[in-house]
């Protein structure tokens, strides 16, 4: 890890202490700009009217859910291959955040679908893949919860994440194939072949805002995870603190 030895949790916590406020401030600013652009400068879509504004949170959320999973995959490699001590902390911290972004993508996709397709849920190839990804996130979080020892849980989750990462393109392909196979009517493509700059810019700004939000939350969650491990270690020490059994074993002990 080059100059900054992030492997040492204490130094990592100090780094987070310094970086976090700035990151959070920047995130708020970019969010404000993005929201303003999404609502005021971006024109309405000739077909969908104002509902296109939902795209400004739906698409970034979907991107984020994919980005977060790839970060978890990289962390899993860190755990298994490079044995980086903070890798499984990063992976475990990222899972709930990834699940939340996937949930947002699903909800906004469904709310966007209602005015466009008339029903809240359509088994569209992209939405379905995001749903499968959501189940994979929840599965990973459940796997972490079932194991007591964080090191063992980290390794198991790393393997599952990598297997999932390898499978994602396969799932995407098969869902597309499954979708076109059964598809009665062609679904209106969500984003046109070329997105008009006045819509593309707010989209990119919102994507940047979401990414910043992810890193803020990820650092905070990682910090929690490190503190949780310290707490566990200290509790083990506390239990092992062999207080001398009370010497005075008086005969009437049971009275």
């Amino acid at each position, binding site marked *: *890890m080059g100059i900054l*030895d992030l*492997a*040492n*949790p*204490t*130094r990592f916590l100090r780094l987070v202490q310094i970086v976090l406020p700035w990151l959070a401030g920047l995130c708020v600013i970019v969010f404000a700009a993005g929201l303003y652009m999404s*609502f*005021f400068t971006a024109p*309405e879509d000739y077909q969908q*009217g*104002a*509902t296109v*504004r*939902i795209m400004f*949170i*739906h698409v970034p*959320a979907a991107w984020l859910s994919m980005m977060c999973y790839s970060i978890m995959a990289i962390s899993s490699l860190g755990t298994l291959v490079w*044995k*980086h*001590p903070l890798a499984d902390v990063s992976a475990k911290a990222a899972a*709930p*955040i990834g699940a*939340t972004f996937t*949930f*947002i993508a699903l*909800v*906004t996709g469904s*709310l*966007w679908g*209602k*005015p466009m397709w008339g029903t809240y849920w359509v088994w569209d190839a992209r939405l379905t893949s995001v749903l499968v990804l959501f189940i994979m996130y929840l599965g990973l979080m459940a796997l972490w919860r079932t194991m007591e020892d964080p090191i063992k849980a980290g390794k198991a989750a790393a393997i599952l994440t990598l297997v999932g990462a390898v499978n994602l393109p396969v799932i995407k392909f098969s869902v597309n194939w499954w979708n076109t196979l059964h598809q009665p009517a062609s679904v209106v493509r969500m984003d046109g072949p070329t997105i008009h700059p006045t819509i593309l810019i707010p989209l990119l700004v919102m994507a940047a805002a979401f990414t910043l*939000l992810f890193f803020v*939350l990820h650092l*905070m*969650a990682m*910090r*929690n995870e490190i*503190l*949780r491990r*310290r*707490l566990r*270690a*200290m*509790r083990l*020490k*506390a239990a092992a*603190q062999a207080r001398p059994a009370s010497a005075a074993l008086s005969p009437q002990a049971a009275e």
Partner: protein
Amino acid sequence: MDLGPHSGFIIASYLLTAGAVLALLVWVLLDRRKLDADLARLAEQGISRARPQQPSRGTQTDRT
């Protein structure tokens, strides 16, 4: 800024997104507060974290 006939859906999706993000943020902050409280309580009982004696070199995990 007219949100057109389907404004309900637009507002709903933005509100739900804000709700989800806030829920996550609150969960992380609450988790942090609980961890700090537990750590403080243990520190009170005199369980100190062992200082890593040797200077850290390479990927040395935090020996506690």
